[in-house]
């Protein structure tokens, strides 16, 4: 077979394989049903919404108005505090805190990272954002640590060293198959008996 015939054959093959492939008509519905099942619920969803990074665009005029409103609100609260004793908010906050506390536990993440200049925690709870949860060095040791409030359930996470090296937690179980690169670890919050 000449080069020309060979190229022609490969082009015929490729052209045939480029033909559209039919999916079952309910494919989208089946995917979305599984997506709905995978969607975080309750506090997990709220927390995800709170921690998901997003860009907000406002005009300078709106920004100025918002700043004025904040200053006025702060001034008004101060004036109210001086003229009458503050009541109620502390109790309301306490109830809210108690409800939240039932769903949230503070988890300490620790990593021994000799020679590291910076260590960040990334996970499904902070949108895998390397900038949102830095660990702090513990004294002059190689130990880095951070405490994070997490809602009950399983969370995947990993450490990022010096902004580039992705590392699973050696002290935690590994997550299942990871299609996106290095392995992650899993922490299960609320697993202990209450």
């Amino acid at each position, binding site marked *: 077979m000449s080069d020309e015939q060979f190229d022609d054959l490969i082009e015929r093959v*490729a052209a045939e394989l480029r033909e559209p492939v039919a999916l079952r008509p309910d494919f*989208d519905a089946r995917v979305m049903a599984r997506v709905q099942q995978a969607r975080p619920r309750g506090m997990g969803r709220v927390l995800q919404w709170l921690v998901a990074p997003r860009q907000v665009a406002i005009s300078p005029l709106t920004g100025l108005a918002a700043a004025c409103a904040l200053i006025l609100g702060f001034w008004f609260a101060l004036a109210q505090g001086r003229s009458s004793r503050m009541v109620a908010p502390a109790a309301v906050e306490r109830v809210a805190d108690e409800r939240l506390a039932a769903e949230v536990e503070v988890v300490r993440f620790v990593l021994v990272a000799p020679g590291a200049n910076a260590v960040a925690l990334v996970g499904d709870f902070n949108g895998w954002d390397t900038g949102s949860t830095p660990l702090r060095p513990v004294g002059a040791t190689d130990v880095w640590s951070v405490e994070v409030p997490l809602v009950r359930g399983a969370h995947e996470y990993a450490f990022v060293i010096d902004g580039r090296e992705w590392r699973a937690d050696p002290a935690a179980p590994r997550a299942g198959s990871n299609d996106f690169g290095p392995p992650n670890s899993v922490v299960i919050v609320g697993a202990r008996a209450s």
Partner: protein
Amino acid sequence: MIPDSDAEVISRVLAGDTEAFAILVARHRDRFARFARHMMGNREDAEEALQDAFVRAYRSLGRCAEPDRFDAWLYRILANRCRTAAARRRRRERTFVSDDRALDQAWSRPEVERSEWREELARALARLEHKQREAFLLKHVEQLSYEEMSVLTRDGVSALKMRVRRACVRLQLFLKDGDQIRGQHV
């Protein structure tokens, strides 16, 4: 009206609008269905791999570093799903035809709904090694550049060029084999 870009849709999903993910599914499913179909060799496995890929993409959407290149990211997930599913299937059963006797049997089985050429091609494709099949499909069917393929597969450009070349040569040989087998059966 200009449709939302992938990055805009992803922002909406991350902000809690789960239903917006359906836009990404509708936008990309056909192209990826073709890749999955040719990688897996049958519709059921292809649809399962593609579904898995979309759901995994949804779960990890916050980790999509370049939302404007969602399709490239999804390709990588799907390629991995196909690889995992194929390995699992190889362990479970010998689905792909891999020896001459099985090839003969497969050839004699009536497949009325498909053309001869398509059947022959599907068998030849199935006989390629997984990585060669993937490289051939990405290059010649999905028409990606070697640089794009390198990003997806994390293999070097030279290795990919070699793999595509070998896939082409082997396809030609397998298709020639098919001609001979067909000749024996006529």
